Structures are given as C-alpha cells and as structure tokens.
C-alpha cells in the first residue's frame, strides 16, 4: 500500500485530532459551537496559513500608523474622504480583475478598455446636444464589456493564454482609445470634459449628513437581518449555524465600520465653506460589492466560477459549460472596468488619452491579490478586492501626502504586491501538502 497518504486517526481517542485538522482548513462558521471555539478554530486557521483578512488588516493598520506618524494630515477628515475617492476606482478595477483571477486567468486590457468606455460616455454628454446620461453610461459600460467578451471568445475558442490575448488587448485598446478620441473630439488634445453633473457627483459630490446616516443604518440593518434570518433558517433545518454571539459580533463590527465611515464623511472638511457628507461613490461601491458577492456566492454562475478555478476538469465532467462561464467572466470584468472608467472620469473631471492604463491594471491585480484572491484561481472574494484596493490607495495617497513622487509609489506598491503573492503562494503550498 502507498505510504504517502497519512493514516487517518482511528477510534475516539483521535477525534480531537480530526477536529483540529478540520479546523485548520474549514470555515469556523460551520463547525464552531460557541464564540470561544470560534476564536480557537479561527486561530488554528491563521496558523495553518489560511488567515483570511487578518494580515491584510494588520498590514493596513501598520501602513496607516506609519503615514500618520510622518504626516498628521493623513488621518484628517479631508484626506480620508480624498482617500475614499482615490480608493474607489482602484477597488472597482480590482473587482473586475477578481472575476478573471478566480478562473486562473488575467485581464491586462481593462485599464484601457475602461478609458474607451468613459470616452464614449463623455463624448455622448458633450453639449450642445447631450444624450441623457443613463444612455451615455450604458454605452460606456457596454463597450468594455463587449471588448472583454471578444477577448474571452478568442481565449476559449482558440485556447490561447489569457495573458497574451489581453496583453494584445491592452495594446489594441490603447490604439482604439487614441482612434476614438481623435474621431470623437478632434483637435481637443486628447481630452474630453465630463459634462454631466450627475456623473461628476459620483466622486465630487456627497450625500447630506442625514442621508449618510440613513443609508448606513439601513445597510447594517438589512445585512444584520439577512444574517439572522439565514442562521435561524439553518437552525430550523437542523443544520449547523454560527453561534449567535459570532453573528452578533459580525453585525457590531459592520456597524462600527459604517459609523466610522459616516463620521469621517460628515466631519467638516471645507476650509472657507463647510463641506460635509459621505461621497456618493461609497454607496456605489457598496452596491457593486453586494451585487457581485451575491453573484459569486449565491448563484450557480458564481459556484461554477469557483469550480472551474479549483478544478476545471471536474467542472467539465459535472456538465458545466466552461467556455460560456469563461467568456461571461471576461464580459463581467469588462463591464466592471466600464464602471471604473466612468468613476475615473468623474474623479478627474474628464477623460484623456493620457490615462495610465497599464499602471492602473497592475494596481488592480495588486488590489485583488492583496485582498486574498489567488493568482492560481478558485479562491478570492469581492470584499477582499475592496480591502486590497484600500491598501493600494493608502500607499498612493500617503506617499503623495509626504511629497514623495512616483518612484516611491511604485516601489511601495511593488513591495506590498510581492508580500501578498508570497502569502498566497505559501498558503497554497501549505494547503496542498495537507
């Protein structure tokens, strides 16, 4: 008999060992009976290398402390709101990348396709005869989505590596961007202003302080209700559910995070005139994260994404249409890039051919990977891309605040990305040897 496979513990004496082995890899939600046990299992997982958001949060805290120590402006309300608007587009591009990374693919083109989409949007809104902004937005989303779909088709039909196809896509998109800009706004120097107040307000405008509170309370209440309802339905069906104390703790943490964001947003950050309120883009990100998390976590499509990323052959034998899911992932990545393009245009107030599309896409991959998405496919969450995007944005923002230029930004981001990939690879190695 083979000796490579470890013998399973036999008998009741080893039951504890089974438990701790299981704990090292299973989500504590489903096996813990109490808060104490939850923490214990969670710690076992951290030791086992699958630590979830913990290192990301610790890293974020360390970076924040560093910047605050160097510049007292860092944690000012004005800068933190600024940070939110900077993080928004990185987070969105990171979420776009999660869709393809989950399949073990990559999309290097979305930095420029997003700009193409935004160019169409801005162009349609140029006076004197602007289109209604929703139509302009739809066009701006559709163009990168179609571009992504075409890349997906090439990748699945011709069985080419996505790295090469989307690298070609990146160059093609840059070329198209120049072409489209030249055709839409000849003689403009490659820039179109964003003429829609609605779209400018995504990054530039803010909810009223009261609206901020209402949105936050509604979001926390809704999420909390969903948690509690889900747990009680599981208990009613005699299935294991997380202990009530754990769920309560989660809701409290969520509420605290919400309160902090709203408090920051509602602090006056104006100099001459009072400026208050949470930027609208925070709400946009919230909606997108919830929608995408639902798609990945609660639908067949999402389940198949993880299955293909984990073991494509198993997914194929289960009757899953791999090509369709793959193409859909590239379409979703493109669509999300379209959202990012409009947010980016809103952030800059215009769209331009000078957009650093190649750099942005690398920030996006960094955000996704820092947030726990595996480059090897099958593992990752949308919420992680938010955390990762915030980290990248903090570095970007903090170094700018310290007056350090692009050189330091690149090197810092490189260091963090390298650290994240190392964690990912080491964790993966740890898992495969169990």
């Amino acid at each position, binding site marked *: *008999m*083979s*000796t*490579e*496979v*470890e*013998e*399973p513990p*036999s008998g009741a004496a080893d039951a504890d060992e*089974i*438990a701790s*082995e*299981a704990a*090292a*890899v*299973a*989500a504590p*939600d*489903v*096996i813990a009976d109490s808060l104490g046990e939850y923490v214990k299992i969670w710690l076992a997982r951290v030791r086992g290398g699958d630590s979830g958001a913990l290192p990301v949060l610790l890293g974020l805290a360390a970076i924040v402390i560093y910047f605050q120590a160097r510049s007292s402006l860092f944690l000012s309300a004005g800068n933190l709101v600024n940070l939110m608007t900077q993080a928004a587009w990185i987070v969105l591009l990171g979420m776009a990348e999660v869709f393809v990374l989950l399949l073990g693919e990559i999309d290097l083109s979305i930095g420029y396709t997003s700009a193409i989409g935004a160019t169409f949007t801005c162009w349609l809104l140029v006076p004197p005869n602007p289109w209604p902004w929703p139509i302009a937005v739809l066009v701006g989303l559709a163009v990168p989505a179609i571009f992504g779909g075409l890349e997906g088709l090439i990748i699945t039909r011709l069985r080419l590596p996505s790295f090469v196809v989307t690298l070609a896509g990146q160059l093609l998109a840059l070329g198209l961007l120049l072409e489209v800009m030249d055709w839409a706004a000849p003689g403009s120097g490659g820039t179109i202003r964003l003429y829609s107040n609605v779209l400018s307000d995504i990054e530039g405008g803010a909810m009223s302080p009261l609206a901020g509170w209402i949105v936050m309370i509604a979001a926390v209440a809704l999420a909390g209700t969903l948690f509690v309802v889900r747990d009680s*339905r*599981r208990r009613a*069906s*005699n*299935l*294991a559910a997380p202990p009530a104390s754990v769920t309560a703790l989660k809701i409290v943490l969520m509420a605290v995070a919400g309160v902090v964001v709203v408090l920051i947003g509602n602090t006056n950050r104006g100099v001459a005139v009072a400026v208050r309120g949470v930027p609208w883009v925070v709400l946009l990100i919230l909606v997108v994260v919830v929608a995408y998390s*639902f798609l990945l976590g*609660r*639908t*067949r499509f999402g*389940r198949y994404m*993880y*299955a293909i*990323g*984990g*073991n494509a*052959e*198993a*997914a194929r*034998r*289960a*009757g*899953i249409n791999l090509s369709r899911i793959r193409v859909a992932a590239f379409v979703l990545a493109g669509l999300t890039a379209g959202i990012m393009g409009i947010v980016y245009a809103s952030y800059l107030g215009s769209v331009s051919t000078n957009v650093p599309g190649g750099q942005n896409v690398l920030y996006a991959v960094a955000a996704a990977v820092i947030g726990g998405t595996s480059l090897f496919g*099958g*593992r990752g969450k949308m919420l992680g891309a938010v955390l990762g995007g915030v980290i990248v944005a903090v570095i970007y923002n903090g170094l700018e605040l310290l007056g350090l230029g692009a050189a330091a930004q690149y090197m810092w981001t490189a260091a963090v990305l390298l650290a994240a990939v190392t964690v990912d690879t080491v964790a993966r190695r740890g*898992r*495969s040897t*169990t």
Partner: protein
Amino acid sequence: MTTPSADDARPATAGRASAPDSDQAPQEQETHQAQAPAVGDPAGPQDANGADGLDGAQPLLRLVDIGKNFGPVRALSDITLDIPPGQVTAIVGDNGAGKSTLIKTISGIWHQDHGQILWQGRPIHLHSPKDATGLGIATVYQDLALCDNLDIVQNMFLGQEPVRHWQLDEISMEKTAKRTLADLSVVTIRSVRQPVGSLSGGQRQAVAVAKAVMRQARLVILDEPTAALGVTQTRVVLDLIRRLKSQNIAVIVISHNLTDVMSVADRIAVLRLGSLVAVGPKSQFDAESVVDLMTTGTSKRLAAEPAEVSHPAGQSSGSSSEH
C-alpha cells in the same frame, strides 16, 4: 475485425431473448447457481446459454461482444459480460489489459467499435457520459474529479444545484448531502461544509461515491478506489462498497489489489490483453488463480472446473494475439 461470424450471432440472440425478462430483482442465489456463466470470449454457443441462464435473473448491465480498437491496437476484443444488480463485480487485469477502456465504454466516454450494451435488457447507445449518468451509471474515476476549493456539499451538487428564489438552495443541498453520507455510514467527516481539500483519501473517495449515489445511480463504477490509500482508509472504502451493495446498487470495482478484490467482490472478471479470460463467482477463484489468469490467461488451479474459464490461450490464433 477478426470476429467469427458465429460469435456475432450468438450473444445478440441471447440478449434479445433475455430482454423481456422480469425486472431487476436482487438475485442473491445467482452466485450459487451461476456455475456456468463463465463467458470467455469466443467460447462457443453453449456458453451463451450459460450466460442467458443467469438463473433467469436479468442482469442490470449486459455487455455483448464489445470490441474497441485504437488504430491498429486492439484494446478490447469481444467482451461479453453480465453485471447483476446488487452485487459487486471486480474487474481485474494487469496494466494494459483493457480495464480502463472497458469502463470508459460503459460510462459513455467513448463508443465501442462493435458489440452491444444492454441496460436492463434494452439495447442502449451511450454517446456521452451524460447518457450513462442519465441511465444511472455513475463512474468514480481514480482522480475523483473533486474541486479542492469547494466544500463537500458544493462538490456533491456541482452542476446540479437546486435554485430557489433566484439563489442556490443551500439548505436543501446540505440536508440531502448529509443524508446521503449518513446512508453510506460515512461518519468521520465533521462538517459537510469542510473544503474537500482538507479531507483524507478515504473521505474524498466517500464524497465522490456519495456524489454518484445521490444522483440515483443503479450502477457505480469505481476505478482503483483503494490505489492511493493506506490500510485504514482502504477499510473505509471497502465498507463503503459493501454499503452500496446493501442498498441494492450494483458495483463494478476496477482494482489491482487482489486482497481488496477477494474481500469485497461477489464476482470476478479477469481481463488479459483485451480479452475476458475468466468470469464467475468469487468462490471459484483464489488469489493465486487470479494472478495466473491475469498473467498467463490460464490457471492450472482451475483446470478441474473447465466451465469456469475459457482459455483464450487455446484459440489465441483468433483474437488475443496482440497484432
């Protein structure tokens, strides 16, 4: 295709004759009565009667003269084999004997070049694995086809997830998965929400089998289920096979491991160089005779019972001469 024409005619009629028989009932006595079902390959008409006379019980699956070539390589020649319901049939053979080719034919991965497959007496044509699954033929390959990053429930329902109110019905999935595992007496798994990557080899095998059983399998084909397992894990899997049998599910086990085969099989079929050299109840074999059959195609130990074994060696000029 060197198949003798007489051989073509024989099992076809046998198959049709048996088709209108009673439905599948578990026929335990078959093992005792079937002293004659030793169907070798071109063994002659009297064997056909013997096969048909599987004591009147309709076999769940009947292979008639299955042949498969890969270019000039003859992978299977004229395999005629009955798989009775509710029994464990072990298919043994050395590397390259055609075991994998045979089960891939049964599970619809590829179509046989000639011959016929009868499922509960009716001729069937399997053009894809889906056809086989639809009939209730589930194959668990050695690689198990599990996604390590998904949990047990997610793996068991992969591709068949029930949807309720626009989202996956996790509760019904989890309940069904737990019930199926409990029915198979799989008790060592702490939570069905554990990722499969965290399970031991035997547990993974159990999950793969449970996945097959959950889809109303009538016949479960296990490809080398114990090949990578230690002693304890092997015991778990053998218990699982007995458990399947007790639920009146027919099992085909492909194995190299004769100890496992002797411990769990009801019937043994020996393949050698693409031909079926012997088939019969386990009582007619012992480990040494099986090894003899696997390696040489004959066994002196079985000489006393000539009905049990057909010796392709005797007529090897025909089919078993390897090009």
